[in-house]
């Protein structure tokens, strides 16, 4: 008995001692909850997941960043129209407009204390355009394709020469992909088989961002500590960030409401709506720019290859009902393929009214007076939103004789199914990082038939307008072109837009400084805790 008593006393004494120390740490530490965590610290790595982009955003700097603006609801957002310096102090366009020269900060350091030079920038950009997969694809979106485009002028001067004039080039240098890596450190850990140190950088931090990696337990937690020598912006207020992975949304909510966590993301809309209503937490939702949830139809195969069938569907899709049942008011109802906060958004263009008689007439004209049977598919990875949407859509389609069987597809199979492009009618979404309507249309409606042109829609007319809008610098002509391709997309209606999802985040009342980013990752640099 005495041993037990002694152990108990020891435990009590120790926990009494530990408590104040922990409380002190808590004031400067931010506890963040996510559903799942990063699978890599390197955004260039094969299969780097969504949260890996966030890890990379935290650990690394880029040459450019964006300014900040205040939205109508008072929340803060990055400013799509304003590029501002990060590692680059300034930049100048060449008179012929075919290159840009960056002056780097001379005082910037990597986490190991070595200076950031133009050689590091070149090595990093060379890596991004060479390793293939997602980083190479994203660089290409800004016409950044070949290593010889990246020129070291001197230690602190770096030039990018252009293959063609492209207004997406500079914004593409402010997305999460073109990170600046400590090339000396990375090279030390490269091998003959792995010249870009892919293996090493997956698990290690070679950055110069505002936070260093303290520890990373894949599938459990990631801990960042502030890099006090950071020069690319004002020193962040939060000293330490603990990101815990909590798979259950209910538990993430309970942890927030009990005050055991400061910030949490990855909630289904219903939880967000409840938390916002209760008023105990700060809940901020920003409609994700250039992102649309839509009903897609296969424009290549019967029966949806007939435009009249697609128009009939457009006439009966009950988007308000779907929005209410699936999004609980979080997001925006959309009746145009251009998202609400993307240039060119014009709800007046939508001609389809809820009109069952007209829909039936269109089906009869198309040769389906008695309707037909088909399958309606969605990805169960987003089931809290898609399932109610699918059920309501199924009911609406049944009203005009289109009988659908619901086909739930697992996330792993969803991409494979999209690749095959043989789903007849489905619910899906797409979002583009660069907030230009023609960027969105290039991926989703253009005849290059990317994976995201899920309808396999082909129309040379729309291709021409999309490409012209990309090149156009005159605002008036640009607006006309955008209206032009939007009109075609609405008339041919391979996709019926439903709604725009929110990027929702819930936090304690004493947490401030949250800012929306197009990449939907938390930026710890601006966050504060009182």
């Amino acid at each position, binding site marked *: 008995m005495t041993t037990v008593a002694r*152990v108990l006393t*020891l*435990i009590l*004494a*120790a*926990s009494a*001692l530990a408590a104040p120390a922990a409380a002190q740490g*808590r004031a400067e*530490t931010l*506890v963040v909850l996510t559903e*799942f965590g*990063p*699978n*890599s610290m390197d955004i260039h*790595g*094969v*299969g*780097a*997941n*969504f949260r*890996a982009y966030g890890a990379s955003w935290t650990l690394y700097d880029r040459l450019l960043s964006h300014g900040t603006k205040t939205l109508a609801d008072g929340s803060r957002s990055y400013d799509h129209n304003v590029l501002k310096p990060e590692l680059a102090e300034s930049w100048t366009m060449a008179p012929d407009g075919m290159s840009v020269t960056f002056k780097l900060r001379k005082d910037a350091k990597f986490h190991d204390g070595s200076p950031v030079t133009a050689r590091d920038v070149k090595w990093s950009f060379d890596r991004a355009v060479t390793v*293939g*997969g*997602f980083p*190479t*694809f*994203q660089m290409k979106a800004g016409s950044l394709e070949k290593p010889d485009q990246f020129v070291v002028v001197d230690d602190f001067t770096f030039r990018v020469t252009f293959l063609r004039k492209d207004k997406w080039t500079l914004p593409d240098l402010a997305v999460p992909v073109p990170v600046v890596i400590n090339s000396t450190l990375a090279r030390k850990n490269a091998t003959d088989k792995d010249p870009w140190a892919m293996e090493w950088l*997956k*698990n290690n931090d070679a950055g110069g961002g505002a936070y260093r990696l303290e520890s990373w*337990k*894949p*599938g*459990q*937690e990631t801990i960042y500590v502030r890099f006090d020598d950071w020069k690319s912006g004002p020193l962040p207020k939060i000293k330490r960030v*603990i990101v*815990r*992975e*909590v*798979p*259950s949304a*209910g*538990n993430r909510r*309970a*942890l927030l*409401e*009990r005050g*055991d*966590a400061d910030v949490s993301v990855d909630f289904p809309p219903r939880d967000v709506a409840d938390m916002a209503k209760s008023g105990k937490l700060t809940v901020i939702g920003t409609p994700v720019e250039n992102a649309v949830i839509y009903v897609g139809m296969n424009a290549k195969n019967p029966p949806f290859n007939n435009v009249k069938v697609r128009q009939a569907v457009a006439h009966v899709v009950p988007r308000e009902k779907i929005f209410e049942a699936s999004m609980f008011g979080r997001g925006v109802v959309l009746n145009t393929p251009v998202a609400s906060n993307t240039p060119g958004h014009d709800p007046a263009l939508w001609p389809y009214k809820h009109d069952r008689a007209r829909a039936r007439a269109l089906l009869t004209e198309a040769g389906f007076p008695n309707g037909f049977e088909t399958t309606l598919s969605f990805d169960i*990875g987003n089931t809290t939103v898609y399932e109610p949407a699918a059920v309501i859509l199924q009911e609406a389609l049944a009203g005009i004789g289109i009988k659908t069987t619901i086909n739930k597809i*697992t*996330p*792993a*199979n969803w*991409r*494979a199914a999209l*690749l095959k492009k043989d789903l007849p009618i489905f619910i899906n979404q797409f*979002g583009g*990082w660069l907030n230009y309507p023609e960027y969105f249309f290039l991926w989703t409606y253009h005849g290059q038939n*990317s*994976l995201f042109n899920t309808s396999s829609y082909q129309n040379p007319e729309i291709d021409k307008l999309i490409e012209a809008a990309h090149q156009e610098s005159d605002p008036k002509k640009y607006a006309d072109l955008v209206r032009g391709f939007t009109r075609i997309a609405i008339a041919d209606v391979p996709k019926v837009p439903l709604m725009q999802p929110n990027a929702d985040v819930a936090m304690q009342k004493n947490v401030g400084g949250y800012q929306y980013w197009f990449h939907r990752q938390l930026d710890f640099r601006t966050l504060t805790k009182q």
Partner: protein
Amino acid sequence: MVRSPLLRMIGRRLLAAAPGLIGVVVVTFLLNRALPGDPAAFFAGPAATQQAIAEIRTKLGLDRSLPEQFALYVRDLARGDLGHSLTTGQPVTADLLARLPASLELTLCGLVLAVSVALPLGILAATRPGSWIDHLARLLTTAGVSLPIFFTGLVLVYVFYYLLGWAPAPLGRLDAFSTPPRPVTRMFLIDSVLAGDGALFWATARQMILPAVTLALFAMAPIARMTRAAMLGVLASDFVRTARAAGLSRHTVMVTYALRNALLPVITLLGMVFSFLLGANVVVEKVFAWPGIGSYALEALIASDYAPVQGFVLAMASLYVLLNLLIDVLYGVIDARVRIET
């Protein structure tokens, strides 16, 4: 060479398990490939082109023929390399080593808890059939089997953490501000004792309570029922009647004669319950953010991430082989009539 019959039996049993394990390797490999998912498409990320997906497929070796992929897999396996997980980005061997102790610790705690409640409960229910304790046992066992395990888990979290605030946050093995003990066994309860850190032991034990109770509620039902049934059978048997007639004390009759004989089927059942619990872990780990192998395998399965699923199944199969062996050895200890040579 091996003299001890026990060791010889263990050796023979392990050899006999080899074909089974080989079968497991082949079947999990084929089953995984038969699933309709496409890991390359999944891991190409949200902005993938056909070309990007093809590049990833080549990198993952998924463009090779099935026999070729299998040969490579077996070659790596022979070197102790279970491949890489795409979901965590780490080698599967490292992931399993880091996560298996978490699952085992939780399962064992759940099992110990279940046995320490269910065994006395079953015995008492058998000795006093029809009494209030028998009814209590019936109620608990019915509830235990009929409540889905995730539901029990969520209710416990809701009541004891969210409403009452007695239990700590369901944040896995440790709260966000504690550092795990120096890894020896990688079971935090044992390691914190080895490190002599009382506060840490308490922090770990607190986290353990709710998930262990969730598992125990589920496991108690079959153990209590089986104990009761076995005890009833034994108590009605001739040798117990004889022992009673001979005037042996109630304690001797109950423990030495009845319980010892009733334990045999219970031990068999414990083996099965342990396997069930490892399976049930998948759900409990999800609810309590417990970083074990169950949640690991589930994540991997959703992503069609072959290597971790194969590693998980292989690890589980090996675990079952060892478990069955252990149970057979225990038989010999409990009942000398079960000769280990047979």
